[in-house]
């Protein structure tokens, strides 16, 4: 609530400054009869922005930094015996203290935790006051300096426009920042993981059996059982994607050919959106459907033919995922088939070929790069799909090519490891980041390749 009121106050002050700026310009023009460069509201806007932006920036810096600074400062308040104990971990201690600060208390925390939490709370209180005062003063002072600049020679419109242009440029950098954030968030943890587990063991090991080290320390007899060979996960991902693509490629391609070459415009107007609905359904709904309708159906029909189908099978997840990615193939392929110049088709018809021959021998080869790109994008979608496999494919890391058995995938392991309580610094938690890194590399690589193909193809007709 504190943050909300502070932001409200900063906004209010800047609006007051807008009024003053506007009035000052008005006075200059009407009472002193001076010739102004810009319209009145540009003077108001300039004062508003010069009050708002510095204080807002200061506010964000202070609120983001205070936790980091506190975390650094709290270190000296942690008792020595805790610091020196064997399984001391700063992140865990910090989480304990923060939970205590937020009022989330599980069981009876040791005395020193509640003590440090109290210290932390007083810091939060002080930092709130400091933030408040600093932001308040900044907004008034910088607003006042903006106000002082107003005179008949000041070109406020140009100044305001420069500020807005800068803001526009900054917002476009967010996309780059997000990419950097994504890469940085996985790369450091992955490096730490590869310090613990050799790179080749992760990439070529055939047994995936992560265990929390806590279990080992507690002496549950599982010492040294942890194994981080990701091959079963890659195999599971590959198997499910393969099933999904063998459903979606034929259906998607034939639909695209039909929609772009054979369908009347009315049929197109009905069926294209209908197919696109498939892409709009949330994946959790597909997962629910795969787990509760498709999997039991496969199981019962499997036992009818004397096959033993696991209740969570790669087949169920793959089939449903295949349906989900139909529109990715059909829509994109439809677009590229449509983009093939009509003159190519006309030339084909002119030589007496049927529609079939024109499509298969002229249009499709011309559209092939785009079609391939759409398939690659569909593959990357299938590899990165999470909820369907979490709900329907199971968690058992079997290394198998049998679609009737349960398999697990990269994404479903990431979810199982990172959801719920985590032990910081343990190889198990870190392994999720290493998996995420491989996932990013695979999907981005495919995306780059697909875009490259599309770009190359585009140049041919322009």
């Amino acid at each position, binding site marked *: 609530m504190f943050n*909300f009121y502070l932001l409200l106050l900063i906004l209010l002050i800047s609006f007051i400054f807008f009024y003053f700026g506007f009035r000052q310009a008005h006075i200059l023009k009407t009472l002193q009869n001076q010739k102004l460069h810009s319209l009145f509201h540009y003077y108001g806007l300039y004062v508003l922005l010069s009050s708002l932006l510095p204080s807002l920036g200061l506010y964000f810096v202070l609120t*983001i930094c205070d*936790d*980091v600074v506190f*975390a650094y400062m709290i270190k000296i308040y942690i008792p020595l015996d805790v610091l020196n104990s064997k399984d001391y971990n700063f992140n865990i201690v910090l989480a304990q203290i923060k939970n205590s600060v*937020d009022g989330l208390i599980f069981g009876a925390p040791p005395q020193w935790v509640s003590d440090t939490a109290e210290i932390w709370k007083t810091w939060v209180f002080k930092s709130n006051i400091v933030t408040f005062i600093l932001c308040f003063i900044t907004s008034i002072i910088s607003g006042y300096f903006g106000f002082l600049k107003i005179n008949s020679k000041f070109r406020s*419109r140009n100044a305001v*426009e420069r500020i807005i242009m800068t803001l*526009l440029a900054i*917002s*476009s950098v967010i*996309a*780059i920042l*997000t*990419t950097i954030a994504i890469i940085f*968030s996985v790369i450091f943890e992955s490096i730490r993981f590869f310090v613990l587990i050799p790179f080749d063991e992760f990439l070529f090991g055939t047994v995936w059996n992560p265990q929390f080290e806590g279990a080992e320390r507690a002496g549950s007899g599982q010492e040294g059982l942890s194994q981080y060979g990701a091959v079963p996960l890659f195999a599971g991902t590959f198997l499910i994607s393969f099933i999904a693509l063998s459903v979606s490629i*034929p*259906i998607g*391609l*034939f*639909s695209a*050919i*039909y*929609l772009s070459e*054979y369908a009347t415009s009315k049929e197109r107007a009905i*069926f294209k959106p*209908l*197919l696109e*609905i498939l892409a*709009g*359904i*949330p*994946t*959790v709904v597909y997962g*629910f*459907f795969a787990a*509760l309708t498709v999997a039991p159906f496969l199981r019962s029909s499997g036992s009818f033919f004397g096959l033993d189908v696991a209740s969570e099978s790669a087949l169920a997840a793959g089939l449903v995922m295949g*349906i989900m990615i139909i529109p990715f193939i*059909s829509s994109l392929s439809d677009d590229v088939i449509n983009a093939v110049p009509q003159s190519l088709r006309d030339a084909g018809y002119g030589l007496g070929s*049927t*529609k*079939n*021959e024109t499509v298969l021998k002229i249009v499709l080869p011309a559209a092939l790069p785009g079609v391939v790109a759409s398939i690659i994008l569909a593959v*990357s979608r299938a590899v*990165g799909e*999470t*909820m369907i496999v979490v709900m329907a494919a199971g968690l058992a890391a079997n290394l198998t090519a049998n679609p009737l058995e349960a398999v697990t995938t990269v*994404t479903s392991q*990431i*979810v199982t490891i*990172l*959801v719920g309580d985590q032990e910081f610094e343990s190889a198990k938690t870190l392994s*999720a*980041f290493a998996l995420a890194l491989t*996932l*990013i590399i695979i*999907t*981005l690589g495919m*995306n780059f390749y697909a*875009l490259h193909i599309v770009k190359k193809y585009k140049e041919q007709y322009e």
Partner: protein
Amino acid sequence: MNNKLINPTRASEIVRNSIAKRRAKDNRLKLYGRIAIGFAVCFLIFLFSSIFIKGYPGFFQYYVTLDINFDRERIDPQGDLSDNSLFNGEASKIVNEALFTIIDPKGRKAKKQAKKMVSSGKDVRLTNLVKSNPNLFGTISSVKFALDDDIDSFLRGYIKRETPESERRISDQIIKFVDKLDKEGRISYEFSDYILNGSASGNPEMAGIKGAFFGSILTLSVCLLIAFPLGVATAVYLEEVAKKNKITELIEVNINNLAAVPSVVFGIMGLAIFISIFGMPRSIPLVGGMVLALMTLPTIIISSRAAIRAVPPSVRDAAYGIGASKLQVIFHHVIPLAMPGMLTGTIIGMAQALGETAPLLMIGMVAFIVDVPNSVMDPGTVLPVQIFMWADFAERMFIQKTSAAIIILLGFLISMNAFAIYLRKKLERRW
């Protein structure tokens, strides 16, 4: 040189003979296309009808009507209707007594079983009733209470009477009680007031989507407030302001790549950056909204850029011609004209964000939270995550509730998309 030239009559003969075959091929391709589309559409219909058939009963549940003696002394011992007083009262005992007068259980064991027949939310229901209407005190009125989920499943026929008692979730004794209640006309099948007003609960008969619904609204609001201005600003900058150089090219490549990054990776980024580094709390709609905003940003940017590009240059030239500055051209002419297209893209992006589950699991919005979140800083969950959590529970009744929640979610998604299409049809101008 080619001595194998066929004479024209022979050639036309070959063509004529092959035509039937080629036409058949043509028709075959057409048929394959129809089959493919038919399959996809059939699946769509199957999916929707299967969810609807499973979920429609989830909006209803079985209630038992009991005559409650609203004795103020016992329900509200301190007489001030405070939470503390009502908590100390004997609300659930009174409900049990009302039940016992009808089914008349003999012995301790039978009584113990009978107590479990009415949902464990009975005392809350009773105290809420007297809180909203204190005039009830001193009267004897009939009140409807939800039945326990196992009895609900029994009445729906999912638990069979013929199954041996040891394999059934409810005992013969309880079935006898249920029959007795039924004979007296006490059991009714009605629209469930828990599915819309209830929150997360381990008891399926009391579980509802209220908390998740408000969580979704808060998360989407944050997402919209961040993604829409940022997306439009980026699109304007790239289309109208920036010169084509290495940096803008880099930004464009980045945007295209972000659109291809799996959603779960955005969740990991949220966990590592917002929660670990910035120290924001877990499970809050603010972080969820920020993660979803970064995820939907490419969708909004790409559609906004298309909308801006569709504004004809003549509009800009006319504005420049009467002396507008670059920013005036953009803000007074280009953006208003491109707004319908931008809004369409934004709504589609929001629909995407509303259905997204995986990134929110990563940032801990999967916690079991009973309270309805009041602000973006309160821990909460969202509709798709609620669906995911319910789908994991074993009780039969949760399947119906899950499907009911899916119907609500799909309802929102379809109306959002329909609104986007309407907007596009209605407002978009052809130049």
